[in-house]
């Protein structure tokens, strides 16, 4: 990369840069997609759910589908909103977020800009994003959005101070603001990494970073329980997607920045592992860090703000925690309390991760219904004596049946000819099976009847005969009738 | 490139700022105009630091100080403004005349 940066700027360079920029954009988009997926999975785990599992294998395409949906959704602008600013705000938020990535070095020879003021550049740009958030909140002409925007700005500005100050130690140690040189200063094993001499800075940076991202223990700006969703309540479609994207791009940026500043960037943790190319190490570290960021941040979700979402376990703990969180949050202090909350939340997640899920992967794994469940009927023509009892007792008169003389002339009576149940009106009251003397009609545990046409709800004898799975084992008619008789 | 275009730009910005500071009635806009004037000064300082008679870093350092003071000034200014708004219910500079009465 260095030789590209040192060349005079010309058309060929321009295209190389454009291409690299597009590649980076795609990488970031992919990252954002799977960050969302991952986050939803984690929230699922901590709430004993499965999380996205329908679109694509393991639900891997869920976020892709969501993004597609967002992009083709109608783009609404409230009539009383401040139109120009409303349109401008997501752009102001997104552009700096993507521009900030430019300074992050990914390997000793892979970086997009070699700025002497790398850290300053990042901080300056992330400050501009905040303007977009405030403006979005203001331009929506909505009280919740305005409150969310103001809170977000107040929080982002106030935590930017500790974020920057926590880095000052490193800048003084390395004597440069250049991110590439900072990483190069950490070569030679993890004991040279900055997080050891700068452990306080590291902790402060991580906390301030979470708060800078408005992630959960610090999600006052979008506190769903009180502000609906914060500054982007009025946004929909691709404008909302831009806000979302900016938020996750910052997650990426902060995670990479932590890696670069404190965790040795592309330097391998042990000299023995030097053979691993740095280009693998950085993403690996970013991933690990992000894992923490997400687990920690989202977990605390169950704690302070959203007990309703969380599992009952987390909810109970939250009720207690919430009070002291509330009192402190607005003062902008209480880092230790938050850390404790985060740790507790992590505990909940790890415990719940392996626990049995309360959700079913429904159509793939059929639901176990209790045996007395009243599902749709199964009919056995051979048993039916055409006594007409079922049709008579049916309260909604949905059974129609006809008999014909027994084809075997030696036998008396009739055999069933047609037997239809109109499931449009059947109330599954179980009376027909109750009354049938021969158990020709019995209930099953199946219940899926949904079709695209009402006509298909009219089931004939063949269908009912074929509906022979999950037949209720013990039919009421077979059991002794009436409790009193059994007791006697 | 000589220093003249930079000085001219600074002069333009300074004059616009001056006009805004003296003609606007909204206190926030007056503050903004003052910021614009300070920025014009900063531009001069930095331009002189590169193309002035004695190129050096002193100009940049001065502009850093300038920016710091400006930040402090805005913080205090906005605080006073908010307080004034609370007490008097106005942000109009022509209404801030209790000392005159």
């Amino acid at each position, binding site marked *: 990369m260095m030789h590209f940066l040192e060349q005079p700027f010309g058309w060929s360079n321009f295209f190389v840069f454009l291409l690299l920029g597009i590649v980076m954009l795609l990488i970031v988009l992919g990252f954002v997609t799977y960050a969302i997926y991952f986050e939803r999975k984690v929230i699922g785990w901590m709430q004993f759910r499965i999380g996205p599992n329908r679109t694509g294998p393991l639900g891997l395409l869920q976020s892709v589908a969501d993004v597609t949906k967002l992009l083709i959704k109608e783009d609404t602008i409230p009539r009383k909103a401040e139109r120009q600013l409303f349109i401008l705000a997501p752009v102001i938020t997104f552009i700096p977020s993507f521009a900030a990535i430019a300074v992050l070095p990914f390997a000793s020879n892979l970086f997009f800009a070699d700025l002497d003021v790398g850290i300053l550049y990042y901080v300056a740009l992330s400050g501009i994003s905040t303007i977009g958030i405030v403006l979005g909140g203001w331009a929506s002409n909505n009280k919740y959005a305005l409150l969310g925007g103001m809170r977000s700005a107040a929080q982002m500005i106030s935590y930017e101070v500790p974020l920057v100050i926590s880095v000052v130690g490193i800048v003084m140690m390395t004597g440069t603001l250049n991110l590439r040189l900072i990483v190069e200063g950490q070569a030679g094993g993890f004991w040279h990494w900055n997080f050891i001499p700068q452990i306080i800075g590291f902790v402060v940076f991580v906390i301030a970073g979470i708060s800078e991202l408005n992630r959960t223990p610090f999600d006052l700006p979008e506190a769903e329980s009180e502000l609906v969703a914060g500054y982007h309540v009025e946004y929909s479609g691709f404008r909302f997607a831009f806000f979302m994207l900016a938020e996750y791009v910052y997650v990426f940026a902060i995670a990479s920045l932590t890696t670069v500043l404190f965790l040795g960037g592309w330097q391998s943790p042990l000299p023995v592992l030097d053979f691993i190319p740095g280009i693998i190490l950085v993403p690996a570290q970013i991933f690990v860090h992000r894992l923490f960021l997400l687990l920690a941040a989202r977990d605390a979700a169950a704690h302070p703000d959203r007990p309703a979402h969380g599992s009952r376990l987390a909810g109970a703990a939250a009720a207690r925690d919430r009070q002291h969180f509330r009192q402190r949050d607005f003062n902008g202090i209480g880092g230790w309390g938050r850390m404790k909350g985060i740790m507790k939340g992590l505990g909940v997640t790890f415990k719940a991760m392996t626990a049995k899920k309360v959700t079913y992967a429904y159509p793939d794994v059929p639901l176990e219904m209790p045996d007395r469940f009243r599902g749709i009927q199964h009919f056995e023509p051979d048993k039916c004596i055409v006594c007409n009892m079922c049709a008579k007792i049916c309260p909604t008169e949905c059974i129609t049946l006809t008999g014909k003389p027994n084809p075997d002339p030696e036998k008396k009576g009739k055999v069933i000819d047609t037997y239809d149940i109109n499931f449009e009106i059947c109330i599954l009251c179980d009376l027909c099976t109750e009354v049938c003397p021969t158990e020709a009609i019995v209930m099953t545990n199946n219940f899926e009847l949904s079709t695209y046409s009402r006509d298909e709800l009219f089931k004939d004898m063949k269908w009912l005969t074929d509906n022979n799975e999950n037949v209720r084992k013990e039919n009421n008619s077979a059991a002794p009738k009436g409790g009193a008789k059994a007791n006697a | 490139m000589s220093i003249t275009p930079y000085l001219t730009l600074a002069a333009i910005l300074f004059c616009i700022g001056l006009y805004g500071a003296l003609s606007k009635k909204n206190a*926030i806009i007056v503050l903004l105009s003052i910021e614009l004037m300070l920025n014009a000064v900063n531009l001069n300082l930095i331009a002189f630091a590169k193309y002035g008679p004695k190129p050096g870093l002193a100009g940049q350092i001065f502009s850093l100080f300038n*920016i710091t003071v400006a930040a402090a000034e805005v913080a205090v200014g906005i605080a006073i403004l908010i307080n004034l708004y609370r007490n008097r219910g106005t942000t109009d500079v022509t209404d801030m005349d209790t000392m005159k009465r």
Partner: protein
Amino acid sequence: MLDRLIGFLSSGENLVFFVFSLVAICGAIFMISLTRVVHMVMALALTFLSLGGIYITLGAEFVGWVQVLIYAGAITILMIFGIMMTRHRGEAETEPQRPWHNGLLLVGAIVLFGILFYVIQNATITPQSAPVDPKDNTLQIGQLLFNQYVIPFEIMSVLLTVAFIGAIVVAKREED
């Protein structure tokens, strides 16, 4: 005239300067002429940003990004905060009821600019040494700040502390 302009714009640095200064002047003029306060602040944020760009082309990388951080970021947001904390009747700046005052001011500002322009055009400023190498002047700024300018630097930090505590005290409600 036109060839001179084209000649001026053919160099990369000049082109960048031209674009940035155009944006800066436009932002400043919009700041004066727009009617809604938030729009004014945004226009000025544009000016601040482009001034940051000009600083960077002048080789003052550090100051340029500090400008973006402090002006375009922090001060703009503070201003927006100020606007949101105070209600603005009808949100619009009322028409100036003092046409004489404003007219005179306009004339005065233009005359001031004329004088400045005259002086700038007539001044001969010749650098006595070559411009300093912009490469890594961040390091040099740091060293200068902590050696030659350490006393102003310390005073500045005291000033900042005083200002921020003062701002908090002033803006705090009486009740709490």
